[in-house]
């Protein structure tokens, strides 16, 4: 992939919103997957595991992608 993947961002505001969107997406996507697994298995706690996994993944991804 080319160097400098992100366009020049003088105020940093776009990156801030991108981070927030990634966090929200991580929590909602893996929370949703956990909820579907809950429906499938009939359990109650997989939702919470999904949310935590999603949060951890998105936090790690934010540091990798934006923290260089």
């Amino acid at each position, binding site marked *: 992939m080319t160097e400098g993947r*992100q366009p*020049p961002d*003088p105020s940093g505001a776009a990156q801030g919103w*991108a981070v927030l969107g990634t966090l929200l*997406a*991580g929590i*909602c996507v893996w929370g949703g997957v956990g909820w579907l697994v809950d429906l499938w298995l009939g359990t109650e706690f997989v939702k919470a595991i999904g949310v935590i996994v999603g949060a951890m*993944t998105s936090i790690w991804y934010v540091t990798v992608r934006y923290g260089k």
Partner: protein
Amino acid sequence: MSTSIVLASECPPDDPGFCSPTVLEFFPKPLAEFTLFGVEFAITRITIISWIATLAVLVFFVTAVRRPQLVPDKVQWFGEAAYTFVRDGIAREVIGREGLRFAPYLAAVFYFIVANNIMGIVPFAQIAPTAAIALPAILSAFTFLLFNWVGIRSQGLVTYFKGIAFPPGVPAPMYILVTPIEIASTLVFRPLTLAIRLFANMFAGHLLLVIFALGTVYLLQVGNFSVVFAPVAFVMAIVMTFFELLVELLQAYVFTVLTATYLAGALEEAH
């Protein structure tokens, strides 16, 4: 108690106390209703305010470029400065050289949102049409379609979606976890937050202003010791009006900058 016809909220007749504005504030009585091709339309106060705002922007820019002169007169200078602000400050700054292609669209979006937002504090209008979710949702839908279309056209369908789904710098096994997040983030949450950010700011600002204005009138009319707090409510209404002006301009700017950023992200692999 009778509030002026300008403030759209109405107290139900059996409630003598302070009735705070509800969501019904944003659904005034329609002035005309009709059905076209099976879709119901209602022309309300808010629709007319939106038309007036759009007309104002159109008239301003058309007047600015009609019979242009080398040494500009006032309106032309103002129109050029307004367009240059978006073209240089947003399009060129965020997207680069390619941005000039999109500067007209970005300027149109920016000034459309500014005009509609400003109606939130203009007397006799005092509601921003962008405080109804429909307007920000459509603008955000345009942004979504635009940046996807531009990305697909400049990079090809497969490369573009692979670029979204498989971002660089992630070790291979983590792609299982990261790819759904990235797809959801780019295709769902960015347009969604774009619309909701504008909508929520305008919605909340309008409700705040209505509460302080109605509060002032109520405190003045209730007739007991509470009248001492009426100046507080009045001052807060004035302060919030200025703050609302700042928020309106800022939200229009943020919307346009983020649209430009998503466009730049869709274009950048192409060169």
